[in-house]
């Protein structure tokens, strides 16, 4: 019982800090509420899809910005726009905010600014991925120890 309590407390703390530090907003909380016995892995699946999508888009941006003979800023912008949409859809607010700034640099055709944003986006995405994976690991451990996941609020 002690083990379960400890894990649950850790889960609550991790969850709270993700929100407090602005990694995730209410949209993520809402998605968690859709998880039930009919779709017990909804959040994990959604997160995995998001990471896949992120990686693909970041690669696209990176390739487009690497073009020495002239960056196609419209192409970069298209990927940033998509990332803005998907990050806001999962509630990844820090990633989304960088996308907003990123789009301004695309519009201004500012390669340096774009590269800086790309670096920031990559960094934020990695941070978020690590933290969510930790959270999901805790969930698994709690369930394996016979406990239940603390309610989402």
């Amino acid at each position, binding site marked *: 019982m002690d083990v379960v309590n400890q894990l649950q407390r850790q889960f609550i703390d991790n969850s709270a800090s993700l929100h407090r530090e602005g990694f995730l907003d209410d949209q993520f909380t*809402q*998605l968690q509420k859709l998880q039930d016995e009919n779709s017990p892995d909804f959040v994990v699946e*959604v997160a995995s899809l998001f990471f*896949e999508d992120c990686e693909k888009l970041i690669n696209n941006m990176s390739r487009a910005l690497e073009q020495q003979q002239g960056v196609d800023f419209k192409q970069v912008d298209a990927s940033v726009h*998509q990332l*803005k949409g998907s990050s806001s859809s999962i509630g990844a607010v820090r990633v989304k905010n960088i996308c907003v700034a990123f789009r301004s640099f695309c519009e201004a055709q500012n390669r340096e600014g774009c590269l800086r944003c790309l670096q920031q986006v990559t960094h934020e995405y990695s941070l978020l991925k690590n933290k969510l994976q930790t959270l999901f690991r805790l969930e698994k451990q709690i369930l394996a120890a016979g406990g239940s996941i603390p309610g989402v609020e």
Partner: protein
Amino acid sequence: MAPGEANSGNGGQILKPFTFNEIVLRNRLTALVVDGDNFCRLLEQGILQAYGLETQSVDNGDAAVELIASGAKFDLILIDMLLPILDGLEATRRIRAMGVRCKMLGVTAFSGERERQAFLAAGVDVFVEKPLGPEILIPILRELDEQYPSI
């Protein structure tokens, strides 16, 4: 007035925030999701499926128009603005031109007033800046559900 419902009219007060799992639909509504981004398309489908909607999805505007032209009927269409092959604005116009009157939500990462006006002019009923949240979706699902007669 049920908890969670706003008072009528603009600037009405929300009594409590909507949450995603707040309602249970009586009818099996159908929806089409049109989004070129893999994640958004699957997420929006997932959200609608969680409410018991039967969903289909396509990843470009041309496929959406073809699907509707082939006779497929939906209670709800979620459509993004930026789409490959045929963009969301033109796809919406063509769908409406076919006489389709179902509820269409333009769900896009664009946030400007110009985009909003354009999408509404093309024929969507509601312009939604991503994310699609419960406060927009729940009232719409409720409205669609109530269109069907109770048994």
